[in-house]
């Protein structure tokens, strides 16, 4: 601070910082390292793999060459028979290949991406309308709504899981795949809307009112002023809020597990990874590679949004 540090103090400071950083980063290094290790190398405590082993990534990303199909001679003769249709041949071959064992990581990633992306867009859009109204316009029950938003956000998903599940059963949504996904989307919407409204409301209040006033003097309506002045000015914050909502949906496990258990094709990554992990043994390399691939988009997103996010987070209402 004001006085120079002695060498001893410097050493202490740097070792404390280093200890803290290692504590934070070590699990990530562990994941990266294990994802690159060959199974025989797992017991090796060093983080550096003896041999670089990329099979786990290749398998997850579908880059593995298909395994040589080992077909008995009798079946081979059958296959050589020109009278057999190509379709039948495929079916026969499929019985001998191990294709059914592959974890459809790409599919789960796409599922998760689609639902998270739509959630993020819808939530940010609806929240920006509501947040603008609460921050700028005067209307009945306005302060009730402003406080209610925070309250609603703090009521966690666990408290709502039974009634929301029962509601979707009663309405008949839970009985079809489409209805289930719609239920899940609506649930993700309410899990993200309150925080999006809160963050955007705080941000809109920092934009000087004189900007809208000037636009309205020039003949813009209120809605036009919002659309042409406020929204473009808020682009970085809108992006940040979008990322935040996206990541909430990307991470969600509880409701995905309640609703998507029997719809395997539509499962999201958290649920699919958990199922993969509990159903098979000794697949650390694949699990860790899948973890890395789930992690990367999120970390990149947050790094992009970090500057605004830190400010938004410290306003206090954000989940953590």
């Amino acid at each position: 601070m004001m006085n120079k540090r002695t060498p001893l103090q410097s050493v202490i400071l740097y070792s404390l910082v280093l200890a803290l950083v290692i504590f934070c980063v070590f699990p990530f290094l562990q994941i990266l390292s294990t994802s690159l290790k060959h199974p025989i190398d797992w017991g090796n405590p060093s983080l550096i793999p003896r041999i670089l082993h990329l099979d786990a990534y290749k398998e997850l990303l579908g880059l593995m060459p298909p395994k040589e199909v080992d077909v008995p001679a009798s079946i081979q003769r059958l296959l050589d028979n020109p009278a057999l249709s190509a379709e039948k041949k495929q079916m026969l071959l499929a019985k001998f290949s191990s294709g059914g064992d592959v974890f459809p990581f790409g599919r789960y990633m796409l599922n998760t991406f689609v639902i998270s992306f739509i959630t993020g867009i819808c939530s940010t859009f609806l929240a920006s309308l509501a947040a603008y109204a609460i921050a700028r316009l005067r209307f009945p029950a306005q302060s009730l709504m402003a406080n209610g938003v925070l309250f609603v956000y703090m009521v966690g998903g666990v408290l709502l899981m039974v009634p929301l599940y029962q509601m979707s059963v009663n309405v008949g949504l839970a009985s079809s795949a489409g209805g289930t996904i719609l239920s899940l989307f609506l649930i993700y919407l309410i899990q993200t809307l309150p925080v999006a409204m809160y963050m955007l409301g705080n941000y809109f209040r920092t934009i000087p009112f004189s900007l809208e006033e000037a636009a309205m003097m020039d003949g813009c309506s209120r809605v036009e002023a919002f659309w042409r002045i406020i929204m473009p000015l808020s682009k970085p914050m809108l992006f940040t809020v979008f990322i935040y909502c996206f990541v909430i949906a990307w991470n969600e496990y509880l409701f995905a597990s309640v609703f998507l258990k029997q719809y395997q094709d539509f499962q999201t990554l958290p649920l699919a990874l958990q199922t993969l992990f509990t159903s098979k043994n000794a697949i650390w390399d694949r699990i860790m590679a899948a973890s890395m691939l789930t992690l990367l988009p999120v970390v990149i997103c947050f790094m992009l949004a970090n500057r605004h996010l830190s400010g938004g987070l410290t306003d206090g209402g954000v989940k953590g």
Partner: protein
Amino acid sequence: MSSILVKNEAKLGLKLVAPAVGIIGLLVIYPILFNIYLSFFDVQLNGDKTFVGLDNYTDLLGNPRYYHSVGVSIVYLIGTVIGTTVLGLAAAVLMNQEFRFRNLARGLILLPYFAPVISVVFGWQFIFDPVNGIYNHVVVDVLHLTDTRENLIGNPDSALFVVILFDIWKHFPIAYLLLLAKLQSVPKDLYEAAAIDGQNAWGRFWHVTLPELRFVIATVVLLRIIWNLNRFEDVYLLAPNVETLPIFTYYQAFAGIVDQGGAAAISVIQLLVLVGLIWLYVRKVLKW
């Protein structure tokens, strides 16, 4: 402003909030009330209900598993709240010093908070894995503290402490961010005055930093309790055998012998506690 303009503004305002408030009303407020209603019924997964009066509540209050999970939740809350607050404070003080690579260090310590739970739990499980994990390697092979490799996560009692450590690791950055923001606004002359008074670094921390931060610390503690009371994913995905209240509720509602009415009753009780805490937060914290 004329009254027509006021009216138009009110109309526009209501129009703009309507979609968001409608969805929240339908999918948060209504379910909260519906949950209270369900807690008086025996509820099946397919939606069938029979009225049972207060049976769900009396069953719950006579169920030792409920008290056990309340106990686990209390240990979890105490451990995580103290842990995240203390580590967050230490990190904030540390990162408020000037040193080389400070921006890099500040970025790196936010990583645990940003990372999706699902992609870090397996790393933590690997660390504590009895066969390959670094924890057992260090404890058994390097330090020779015990002779047998232990499965810390497999045993619910020790898993609770792993879960607490994991939560501290994952969530201290948010405490750190809140505390650092306040720390940066503490006037420098307060420290100078304290230095002139002959206070050493520890004295300055005790007499200047802590009193300046006390409201933020209280905020952090309250927010941690509120969030951790409902925390599900972080516990369940790392160690499903640690039965905090949310996990007990989940098992009641969706696993084994399904008792959705009972789960609704647990949620009602938990909601009452939560409403009390949020009320405290709104009244005390938001007024500061």
